């Protein structure tokens, strides 16, 4: 009896004792163990961030280069031939290669930048620091998580350089196109590499996710009850749960696709004629792949969005010097979004011949997501309302996130209706919608996080002037690029087409497309400026001189300015209150470590 009910001594103490020992007599750290095969969650987070930045430059550059051709379909650009060689002979992108570029742009940005680069970075850096833990539950698996991501990156990057080119069937890799090598160049070796790379990526995401979940549940410091956790941590928690439960389904889908490609099975293939050749495959279903893909694909957009939401909540509260409005409502909304994320995948498939009754159920569930989303938006706005706002670059990006989330979210209501979706499906409207709500909004959340936690990561500040320029050009540019695409989509302009000039009805958009192209070049240049700011500031930025530069309540600001492996020197602080006591009882902020005073009012 006592054995079963008493607190497991191993469970409670190992962590503390183990790491305190570490701290007393430091391990000899070499360059390799400190910067390359590091098991320190902070270093791993930075590795994810820098790898993510490199991928973002590659993925962003692709979009700028194909935008060049989209804006000026009849022009020849020497730079295109310089960069792409035979794929853009004479300075014009070949149609098949355009599809490869779009595929890589999507894959890289969705998975490598906004999944690994975003939640990989901030879950790693923030979870132990904000929970009061020395490190992740398993630092070793955490390190493996990065190196599997690195392996996935190497494979995906290599696929860009093979003679048949990278995968070219859209980031959703729908079969039969993706399953049949004879159907297109991009469905040859590039597609196999895409699948293998994604399998490695899924392993990485699983190792990371399991670590995040068990760290959050098991490693909270004394007094850090679940409802005293900052919303960032709650967001990371739900993100990890989504990833752990949805990525395995993509893995199943990818394995079956690999079999169809290489072993002659017929999971997704039936009754196909390619280049006049009748294929023996029968009995498979291409729609089956779409179900498997979107069972991941839809939670994936929340895997991208939730960490941004969490960080924005934290940054807005800190910088408006006010408690977050509706903590429990925020938490409930995160939970509701997490559940609904699993129940709406077929809204990507309204035009596949889905049973209309089933479609209407998915419409209902999809529109339900508007409720928690709206709750979150109103809570952010009311957090800002009458706040004593400090407009740091991080705050601006956080506010930008809210703006973009509203704009992009509203168009989601259009697309979530199966009837309207029949008209809008596969048009530029969809491109506009998901770029604003998922792509750019999450990017804003990520950038807000980088600006806000850069002092913690590197002990220096990012340059604010460059930060302000970065923000204003990016937000204006983002709206100029994506807002007009809604009109193109409403007019019926299809996505994924290189040259639309043969349609007379779309010639009216010719000048608009040029404008979008010019703006996207400017916005990309400004991102490069941010990258410069980032690397310059790591070495030369203004030094952080106080432990808590933003006057924040959370635990990461109780660590030394440049924390070592183990985060706190001496004891881990104990937590006595929730993280949002700003502007309370006449005090600007009260850190979580401060015990509740005798006459303190309730929050």
């Amino acid at each position, binding site marked *: 009896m006592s054995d079963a009910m008493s607190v*497991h001594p*191993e469970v409670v103490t190992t962590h503390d004792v183990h790491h305190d020992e570490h701290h007393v007599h430091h391990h000899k750290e070499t360059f390799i163990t400190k910067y390359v095969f590091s098991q320190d969650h902070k270093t791993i987070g930075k590795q994810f961030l820098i790898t993510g930045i490199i991928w973002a430059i590659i993925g962003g550059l692709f979009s700028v280069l194909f935008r060049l051709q989209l804006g000026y379909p009849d022009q020849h650009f020497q730079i295109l031939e310089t960069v792409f060689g035979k794929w853009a002979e004479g300075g014009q992108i070949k149609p098949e290669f355009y599809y490869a570029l779009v595929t890589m742009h999507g894959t890289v940005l969705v998975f490598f930048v906004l999944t690994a680069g975003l939640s990989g970075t901030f879950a790693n850096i923030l979870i132990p620091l904000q929970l009061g833990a020395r490190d992740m539950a*398993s630092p070793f698996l955490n390190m493996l998580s990065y190196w599997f991501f690195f392996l996935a990156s190497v494979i995906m990057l290599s696929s860009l350089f093979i003679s048949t080119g990278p995968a070219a069937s859209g980031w959703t890799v729908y079969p039969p196109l993706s399953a049949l090598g004879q159907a297109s160049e991009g469905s040859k070796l590039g597609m196999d590499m895409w699948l293998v790379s994604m399998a490695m990526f899924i392993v990485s995401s699983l190792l990371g996710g399991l670590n995040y*979940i068990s760290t959050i549940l098991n490693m*909270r410091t004394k007094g850090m*009850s679940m409802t005293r956790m900052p919303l960032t941590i709650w967001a990371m928690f739900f993100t990890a749960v989504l990833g752990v439960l949805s990525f395995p389904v993509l893995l199943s889908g990818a394995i079956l696709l690999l079999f169809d490609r290489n072993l002659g099975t017929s*999971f997704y293939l039936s009754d196909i004629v390619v280049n006049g050749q009748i294929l023996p495959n029968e009995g498979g*279903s291409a729609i089956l792949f779409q179900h498997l893909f979107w069972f991941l694909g839809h939670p994936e957009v929340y895997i991208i969005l939730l960490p941004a939401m969490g960080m924005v909540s934290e940054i807005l509260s800190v910088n408006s010097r006010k408690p977050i409005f509706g903590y429990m409502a925020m938490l409930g909304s995160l939970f509701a979004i997490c559940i609904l994320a699993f129940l709406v995948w077929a809204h990507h498939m309204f035009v596949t011949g889905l049973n209309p009754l089933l479609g209407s159920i998915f419409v209902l569930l999809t529109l339900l997501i508007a409720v928690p989303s709206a709750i979150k938006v109103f809570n952010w706005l009311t957090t800002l309302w009458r706040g004593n706002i400090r407009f740091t670059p991080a705050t601006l990006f956080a506010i930008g996130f809210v703006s973009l989330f509203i704009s992009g979210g509203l168009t989601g209501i259009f697309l979530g209706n199966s009837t309207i979706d029949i008209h809008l499906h596969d048009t530029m409207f969809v491109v506009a919608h998901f770029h604003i709500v998922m792509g750019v909004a999450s990017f804003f959340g990520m950038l807000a996080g980088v600006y806000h936690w850069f002092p913690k990561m590197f002990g220096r500040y990012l340059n604010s002037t460059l930060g302000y320029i970065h923000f204003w050009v990016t937000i204006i540019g983002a709206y100029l690029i994506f807002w007009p695409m809604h009109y193109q989509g409403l007019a019926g302009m299809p996505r994924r087409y290189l040259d639309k000039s043969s349609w007379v009805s779309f010639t009216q958009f010719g000048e608009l497309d040029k404008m979008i192209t010019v703006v996207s070049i400017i916005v990309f240049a400004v991102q490069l400026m941010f990258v410069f700011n980032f690397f310059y500031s790591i070495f030369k930025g203004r030094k952080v001189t106080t432990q808590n530069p933003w006057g924040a309540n959370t635990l990461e600001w109780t660590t030394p300015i440049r924390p070592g492996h183990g985060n706190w020197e001496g004891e881990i602080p*104990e937590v006595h209150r929730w993280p949002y006591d700003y502007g309370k009882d006449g005090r600007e902020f009260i850190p979580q470590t401060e015990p509740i005073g005798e006459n303190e009012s309730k929050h």
Partner: protein
Amino acid sequence: MSTQATVHQTKWWSGGKSPFNLEYGKLMMWYFLMSDAFTFGAFLISYGSIRFSQNYWPNPNVVFDSAPGIHGGAPLFFVSIMTFILIVSSVTMVLAVHEGHKGNRQGVIKWLAWTIVGGLAFLSCQAWEWHHLITGEHAVLVNGQVELWGQNMSHNPWGPVVEGVTYHGHHVTTPGPVAFGGYFFGITGFHGFHVFSGVIINIIMLVMAQKGVFDRRGHYLMIEKAGLYWHFVDLVWVFVFLCFYLI
């Protein structure tokens, strides 16, 4: 009594301890198994959706009616043995974990070794079954000609029987649904891969136990985690068995 009273007052969720009184590795294992369950779930649901979209599906009592030395006429006999072996290996795993609780190294080593034997026996059975299916020769009527087919990824000899036609005294069938082979080999193969990795894990555990690693740590938690994985693999087999052999 007093200890019980304090235990009830313990605030499990207030931080500083594991709310489930679980070491992190076990928590991770549970979440991993949930994740893996989704992988298998996706496979089995895909299988179900394709199978029930077909007009005809082979009868498992006909497909799986042989065993080493028995050519036909023993429906599901061999797979029952396989299932029995795997379930017994789960029992021996339970005993290994139990000995681990008592800190009895010799007991752990004994029962882990039996579990490994069980896992290897299951894999051998599966290898025989696959080999038998792939190399089998069944008369199939294709374009008016009789061809001898085995069961593989792209050929299925278990279609409806052609009435009134025999070939060397055997039934002649029409080609069956191609999807059968893909799903059968795909899913049982993926499960077999899990059994294989479970055996590897158990061997590592055996070596570690032999070297006294767990005695030095003072607990056999690793055996428990390996046990969780092993039971999960067994549980998955129950569903695979149900979906491919019974229904």
